[in-house]
């Protein structure tokens, strides 16, 4: 079965290395003034790091499609919460009537 796949130590160490490098980059990038871009960059790096952990350390890469679906659905649901919630906060004041 596919989930019995045993990756090499080398692969684990290289993922670890990549995570260290990305951590360094995120610290460095935060020190650079990029205006509105700072947060997206930080998030993009964090998402990349998270994805590396999920795919390799947690072995989703070798897992069943169902597990992949479950892993992605958690992410999608949290986005639903954010999107529908911010839908309120970002449109407040559009009408020009206080509290509407």
């Amino acid at each position, binding site marked *: 079965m596919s989930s019995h796949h045993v990756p090499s130590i080398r692969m684990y160490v290289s993922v670890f290395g990549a995570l260290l490098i990305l951590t360094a980059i995120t610290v460095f990038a935060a020190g650079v003034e990029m205006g509105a871009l700072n947060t997206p960059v930080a998030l993009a790096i964090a998402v990349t790091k998270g994805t590396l952990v999920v795919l390799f350390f947690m072995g989703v890469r070798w897992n069943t499609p*169902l597990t992949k679906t479950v892993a992605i659905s958690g992410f999608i*649901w949290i986005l*639903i*919460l954010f999107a*529908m*919630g911010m*839908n*309120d*906060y970002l*449109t*407040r*004041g*559009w*009408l020009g009537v206080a*509290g*509407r």
Partner: protein
Amino acid sequence: MKEAAVQQEPSYLEAPYGLASWLLTKDHKRIAILYLISITIFFAIGGTFAAMLRAELVTPQGDLLTADLYNKVFTLHGVVMIFFFLIPSIPATLGNFFMPIMIGAKDLAFPRINLLSWYIYVLGAALTLTVVMLGGVDTGWTFYAPYSSIASNTNVTLAAVGVFITGFSSILTGFNFIVTVHRMRAPGMTWFRLPLFVWANYATSLVMILGTPVVAITILMVAAERALHLGIFDPRIGGDPVLFQHLFWFYSHPAVYIMILPGMGVISEMVANVSRKQIFGYSFVAFSSLAIAVIGFLVWGHHMFVTGQSIYAGLVFSIITMLVAVPSAVKTFNWTATMYKGSISWDSPLFWVLGFMGLFLIGGLTGLFLGTMGLDVHLHDTYFVVAHFHYIMVGGGVMAFLGGLHFYWPKMTGRMYNETLAKIASMLVFFGFNLTFFPQFILGYMGMPRRYHGYPPEFQVLNVMSTGGAMVLGVGYTLILLYLLYSIIKGPKAPMNPWGATGLEWKIQSPPITHNFHETPVVTEDAYDYIHAPAPQRGGEE
């Protein structure tokens, strides 16, 4: 005959005996019974609170209970009924008992976690009862900040922790069900052969695992505001109380579907059985459950049209709310069509089905009034809302729960109850319910706000009607409790398949053995194959 040999085996109720064997059981059926006993106790407690509320509202002056006591009673009525009765009602009892059997499994995927969920429930329940002893809590079941976090001086923190803990019992049930449906189906039990009750419970479980954690953290934030002086919703330090409502309703609106979806599943089983016919539009009914569960997550803002939420957010929430009405309508039409050209059996299950359909219809349709933005301005937080959600959750949810309980009682206990009494009770509940809650629609449109301890005198007549109905309702519920308890002691032995129903659960002995099946069943037919269904067995009396 093979069946005679089967009856020799001791059932799950008999082997082994003793209190410890129940309290440490890993058998999903016994855990279902433990849940059934607990939720019955809480239904009685919540019902007592309801009776106090209705008694208070007979007169406009508010002279029976003090305002403080009234506020605590309606809060506890809501907390107990929602978190300790309605949410676990069908999933943790009928679902726990029958879902594994229906898919041909020996147990849920994680039996120990199933037991753990019951203990967590009991722990949460114990905390909540402690709150009652210590003088109660008065925030309403909604725990709205900042009233709950900075103004109320009742036991909010403890109640919040109680609800937080109970949430985990619900999460564990949901996650157990999902894994079970995915991984434990018997050979040949494909997704489209699953009984609709399983589909409904699966959809419910999705809501449980995706929604419950959000309300858990929200309630925890309120508790932290009170206990640790953190401030997240506190307007004095710049917090936004409306954020609480967003987070709260992200769960609590889908929670309504936790309460009604399993009921729809039960009714799907029962409609097919009383009609002795394949369910009309199986895949539409199945997918409408999933659609309700998923779309149900996108509509929470319709609780907040007048709370200072942006009008544009309101628009989005309103249109999706209108969309979610469609799958519910589809289900209702499919049930109706199932009865067409059936061979309707006038046994007691029919009465519950008809009762459910009537009440759910009104409950669902009145939701349209509230989802329409311009109209919700007037109706928001009035008795119209109270009537609407009682029609859905009590009219729909409890009627389906009771119907399911009657339908499956012979299988669960191995005993038959008195059919005539069951028919009388179902009608008492139906008419009592309508008398209680229909006047509240009128009260609501006239403008009577909810959670009012006293009210202007012109609302009195309708309130008295409502209280009268509540008494009939109370008699109906008590009657059910009495004859079901009586049936356990003196009821005739139930045959294997008293309703002549299809499904794996009706092919095993009543009550089932501990591991459900002697051999792993192999499924070769679709659900609801009533053309080849056996006739009801009525010779069970001894």
